[in-house]
């Protein structure tokens, strides 16, 4: 089967800053691909280029057989027409880090606006479908609430329902749990897991290593705008081959410091000296032990959530 998404040699820079240095990525239908990597590595930019929220400088992107951008014979990049871009966007749902719901509309209104405006669906049918979608993300009881009346986790689930209402063939998730309280991330991840099980093709930019390990078919580790390592989730996350991947995973999982470009790595490896006051130091140690305990608890809870699979705590 032909890949649903085909990205070849994707390049993007902002001013002098080269963000993407030639990314290749194929995504098969129903495949879930997680993109991980340090902050500033370009992972979000890949998603934004696939949805043309950002215009690539070079390379070729194809979604569902339609060419979004391609390099001409002269090396310059050409983009699909405005109309074609809108058509492709109908097939690509995107969920943002900061939800980006329309605050003057209720959850239901947020979900039906796209189908009515873009697909020309009639209001009755759109509303019926929206109720189903809100139920599927566990928010039937919130249909008439405004975004500001909901928690971050709930807002993000509305945002997922809103994207799904367009009946997309591909969903892009851009660090969708980063802006919500940690204890609410699980409910979003659960919805995404269900979506993956239903066969949705997904590209997920994430810092949730548990999710990446559990749900994705494939993981890409990106750094400095290049794919450093790519493979099955268990391989990249469990037995990474590249030093850079190992350092990153250590930094994420153990909160160990990771040297950035220009940093002196020796300095980072020294014991942190926050305070010379022995009492304060003791307190800090207690705090960090407490934090570690809490972090373990959350991780365990999240694991349980995943194992519990199809049942959902919030109805």
């Amino acid at each position, binding site marked *: 089967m032909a890949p649903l998404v085909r990205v070849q040699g994707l390049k993007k820079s902002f001013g002098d800053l080269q963000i993407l240095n030639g990314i290749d990525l194929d995504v098969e239908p129903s495949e879930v691909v997680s993109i991980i990597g340090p902050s500033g590595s370009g992972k979000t930019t890949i998603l934004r280029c696939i*949805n043309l*929220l950002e215009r690539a400088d070079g390379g070729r992107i194809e979604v569902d057989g339609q060419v979004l951008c391609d390099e001409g014979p002269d090396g310059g990049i050409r983009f699909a027409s405005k109309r074609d871009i*809108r*058509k492709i*966007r*109908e097939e*690509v*749902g*995107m969920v*943002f880090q*900061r*939800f*980006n*719901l*329309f*605050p*003057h509309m209720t959850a239901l209104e947020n979900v039906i*606006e*796209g189908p009515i*405006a*873009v697909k020309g669906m009639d209001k009755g049918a759109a509303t019926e479908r929206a109720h189903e979608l809100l139920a599927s993300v566990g928010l039937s009881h919130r249909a008439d609430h*405004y975004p*500001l*009346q909901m928690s971050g986790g709930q807002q993000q689930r509305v*945002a997922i329902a*809103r*994207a799904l209402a*367009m009946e997309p063939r591909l969903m892009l998730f851009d660090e969708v749990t980063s802006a919500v309280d940690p204890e609410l991330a699980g409910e979003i991840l659960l919805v995404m897991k269900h979506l993956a099980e239903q066969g949705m093709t997904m590209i997920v930019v994430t810092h949730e290593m548990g999710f990446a390990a559990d749900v994705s078919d494939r993981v890409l580790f990106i750094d400095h705008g290049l794919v450093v390592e790519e493979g099955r989730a268990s391989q990249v996350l469990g037995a990474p081959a590249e030093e850079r991947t190992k350092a990153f995973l250590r930094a994420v999982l153990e909160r160990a410091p990771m040297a950035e470009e220009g940093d002196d790595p020796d300095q980072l490896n020294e014991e942190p000296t926050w305070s010379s006051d022995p009492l304060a130091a003791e307190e800090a140690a207690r705090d960090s032990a407490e934090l570690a305990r809490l972090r373990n608890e959350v991780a365990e809870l999240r694991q349980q959530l995943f194992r519990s699979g199809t049942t959902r705590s919030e109805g």
Partner: protein
Amino acid sequence: MDLGFIADIVPEILEGLPTTIGLFLWSMLLSTVGGLLLALARMSAVGALRWFAVAYGWLIRGIPLLLIMFYVFFALPEFSRTFLLSPFWTAVAALSLWTAAYQAEAIRSGILAVDNGQYEAAEALGMTRAHYMRRIVLPQSVRIIVPPFMGNAINTLKQTSLATVITVPEMALITTRIISREFNALEPLLALAIIYLALTTLLVFGQAGLERAFRLKV
């Protein structure tokens, strides 16, 4: 102070009320359209439009309205007789040009208050830019625009009195005629002040009503 005298002259001053209101409503209509166009020009991708909008605001907000009024009345017709307008329409033109510069800023602040993330969400859903402006930006920015917009409206209402200097028979001109006829300034000026206060008070209530109507429901 002679209250009987005030009662006598109020009806005479009010003969200028339709003119005052005419100046105000025409200026508000034209300056709102102009202000919207200027605000959009200021945020346009076209450099020349942005430049024009900035220069316009700088110029108009930097010189007195009285000067603009004189300019439209005396100077413009020297370029071409097509600019020769009646006193009333001269005042409308000057007030509109002047108010538009302020309304542009009020409208722009409202549009800018809608964060870019919503634009990206609308784009990602495949909405057109026009649909985004109408259904997403407008309802949210209106409630932000209302207070500064109505503040500008109150200013424009008061500034219609400047049309006196180009002989538009609005309330202030009639009042100055009464003063020179009666050799008495106290009561006519007091009466005029009370009428303006009543009108601006109506606008304040109007603003409160608009703010209620456009309040974000949460």
